[in-house]
Structure formats: C-alpha cells, structure tokens
C-alpha cells in the first residue's frame, strides 16, 4: 500500500497497475482534487471526460461505471463513492484563468501543479488535457446555466477507483481560494494505492 498526501494547493503523481485500487480522500472536506490519468505504456492515451460522457451517457458517474480513455477503452472503474457529487465538465484552472478572468499573475493553478507532478513520469504538459474534478460541485440548472458551488464533502469523504490498465496519474488539490469551489479554504487530499479493496 502506498499513501501520498497531496498538500493543499499543490499536485502529486502516482502509479497504479491494472487491478489495484486508487482511493482519493478529502481529509478536511470541501476540497477539489483535479484528477488526470494516462495509459502507462502510451501517454497519448488519457482518461477523457468527453469520451466518458458519451460512454456513460451521463454528466456524472456512479459506482459500477467505467471511465474511458481518449481511445474509448476503460481505464478506471468506480468502486465506491461517499461524496456523490463530482464534475468532469470544467477545465483545470491554469495561468490564463487567473490572468484573464481575475487579473492575477502567478497564482498557483491545477494545470501547472499537474504538469510539475507528472514531469518526472515522462508526461509532457501538452498531453495534460481536461481533468476529472473529484469532489467539485458545478451544478447545471435545467436551462443549462453552469454554477460553481461549494463541495458537499465532509472530512473523510472519498472515492475509490480500480485501475483497469497500468496507469500514471496525478491529483492537484485545487488552489482556487476566492471562489466557493473549495469552500474558501485550501486543504490536503490523500491518495492511497492498494492491492486490497479498501473497506
């Protein structure tokens, strides 16, 4: 079993082999983890939100669902989820988000956190596409208006995935500290990679 704490506002990478379990835990609650994953044998195949939406015919995922890659192959199975609210429609925050929308230069951001964490694993920044925003609460109204709301998570809420191929992944504990998306408080996440299914 390997345990990695993702410090709030920063990113960490992990590796998992097919069959292993990946648990992402929100230690203090209301903290988004931007989550990306790549086929370990070909970094040009990645966990893809747009392909997963059409594979599941859904904007959300539930236990039992299989998330797919850019080549429509299953890469993760959702095993357990105590949070129930996640997002995979909103891009990762990046320098342009802070600069163009908010006039802030040099703010920490998920895109660069993921790039930093994945650089030692041979992932080029341009290969990092749209993330799964675990624990993010971005409700859509019936008329299609997107909102950015506080997560519903409590301390200890978690999602458990099973890897369906050997993969390299990364999580950024999102540093967005002035929108409701992290409850205005940036905290740590924990990644656990295990052989055994967590109880």
């Amino acid at each position, binding site marked *: 079993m390997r345990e990695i704490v993702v410090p709030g506002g920063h990113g960490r990478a992990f590796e998992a082999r097919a069959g292993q379990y990946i648990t992402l835990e929100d230690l203090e609650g209301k903290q988004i983890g931007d989550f990306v994953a790549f086929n370990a044998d070909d970094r040009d195949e990645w966990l*893809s939100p*747009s392909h997963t939406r*059409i594979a599941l015919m859904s*904007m*959300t995922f539930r236990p039992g669902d299989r998330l797919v890659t850019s080549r429509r192959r299953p890469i993760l199975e959702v095993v357990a989820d105590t949070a129930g609210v996640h997002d995979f429609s909103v891009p990762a925050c990046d320098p342009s988000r802070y600069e163009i929308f908010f006039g802030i230069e040099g703010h920490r951001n998920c895109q660069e956190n993921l790039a930093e964490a994945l650089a030692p694993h041979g992932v080029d920044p341009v290969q990092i596409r749209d993330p799964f925003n675990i624990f993010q609460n971005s409700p859509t109204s019936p008329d299609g208006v997107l909102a950015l709301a506080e997560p519903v998570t409590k301390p200890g809420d978690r999602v458990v995935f099973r890897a369906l191929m050997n993969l390299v992944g990364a999580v950024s504990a999102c540093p967005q500290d002035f929108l409701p998306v992290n409850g205005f408080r940036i905290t740590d996440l924990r990644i656990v990679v295990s052989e055994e299914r967590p109880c």
Partner: protein
Amino acid sequence: MLKLRAFDRPAETEFVVKGGHGKAFVVGVGQFLTITDVQGQQVGDFFAWNRHDPREYLSPHNTRLASSALVPPVGARFVTNRRRPMLVLVRDTVGRHDLLVACCDAARYASLGAPGHRSCAGNAEEALREIGVVVPRLYDPVNLFMHVPVGVDGALTIEPPLSRAGDSVGFRATMDALCVLSACPMDINACNGGTITDLHVRIRNEADWL
C-alpha cells in the same frame, strides 16, 4: 502574433461540405463565418486552430466555463485552450448545439458494430491532409446543431437536431483561424435524424444577413 493586414485576409467564399465528409478553410480576424444546415437535422463537427500557432485551439470546455452555459448564447465568446476569444457567436437560428461530447471516430464505430465507417475524426484528418496542414492532435469539437439534452440527474440523450432546412449559425472571427467542418456521418443513432445531408459555409467581410 502576426497582425493580419486587409490584403492578407482570406477571400470571401462559399462552398458546400458534402454530407458525411469534411472540409478545411481559413477565416480572417474580423470576417463573418456562417454555417447553414441546408436540409435540416445535420450536425457539423467544428474544429479550429489559431492559424499562426496550432498549439492554440478552439476549446468547447473552456467555452462552456467562459459563458457559464452548456450551450453558449448569442454574444458568447468561443475561446481557445488559452481562454482567448477566437469567435463570437453573433447569430443563431437554432439555439441548440453540443459542447460536451467527443467526435465520432474509428473506435466509436467499431464499438457500434460498424468498423470502417466514415467518422468526424477521420474527416478532419483527411481535410487537413488535403491542404497540407499538420496539427499536433485533434481536440474535442463544437458539435453545431447537435442535440444532446441533459436530464435533471445528469443523464444525456442523443436526439435528432432541432435545426430545420436553412437554419444557421454566424460567428465573427476575433483571431485568424484554421477551421475544419465535418458534416457528421453518424447514421446509426438519432444524431442526424437518420439521414446524412450537406452543410454550407459562407465567409464574408461584412455580416450578410442584415
């Protein structure tokens, strides 16, 4: 970035994109691009890149966030992966498009039991090859006229487009753009109402629908 001078501007033009096929073209900053659904219920998968730097491309995902909407309204800026406006939606007689789902590709048809079927990904690659352009990789398209309602529980369905013969969308380019339009060949589900038909592209220096 290069500033486009008036005489560098792509010539005004119009052409048909044959049903099930794709076509590449350029639009200059300030020009108006109109895409018309000739017979109705035909989806157009639309891809675009900054003409001067193909690492910058039209991003449906950034566009949804920029407009706080699943289907951006008239006036919305369609932005790139660097969140810069590339096109502004200035006219839309349908109001229903999709910016959520990936384009059809070889793997999609293989999974539907139709290997070797034409696809939007294949059409885009073919169209780019025709004009001798190599781009780093296809990104997700804006699926013009595609009708993918979202249920209250987040369930997606693919319904026939709401577009009728002659319906169109108009954009004003705010960046020199290399574009690809594929008249989606999907004839296995309701995506194109069961019949694959042509789209029409018009590029003008002035808005010509006024």
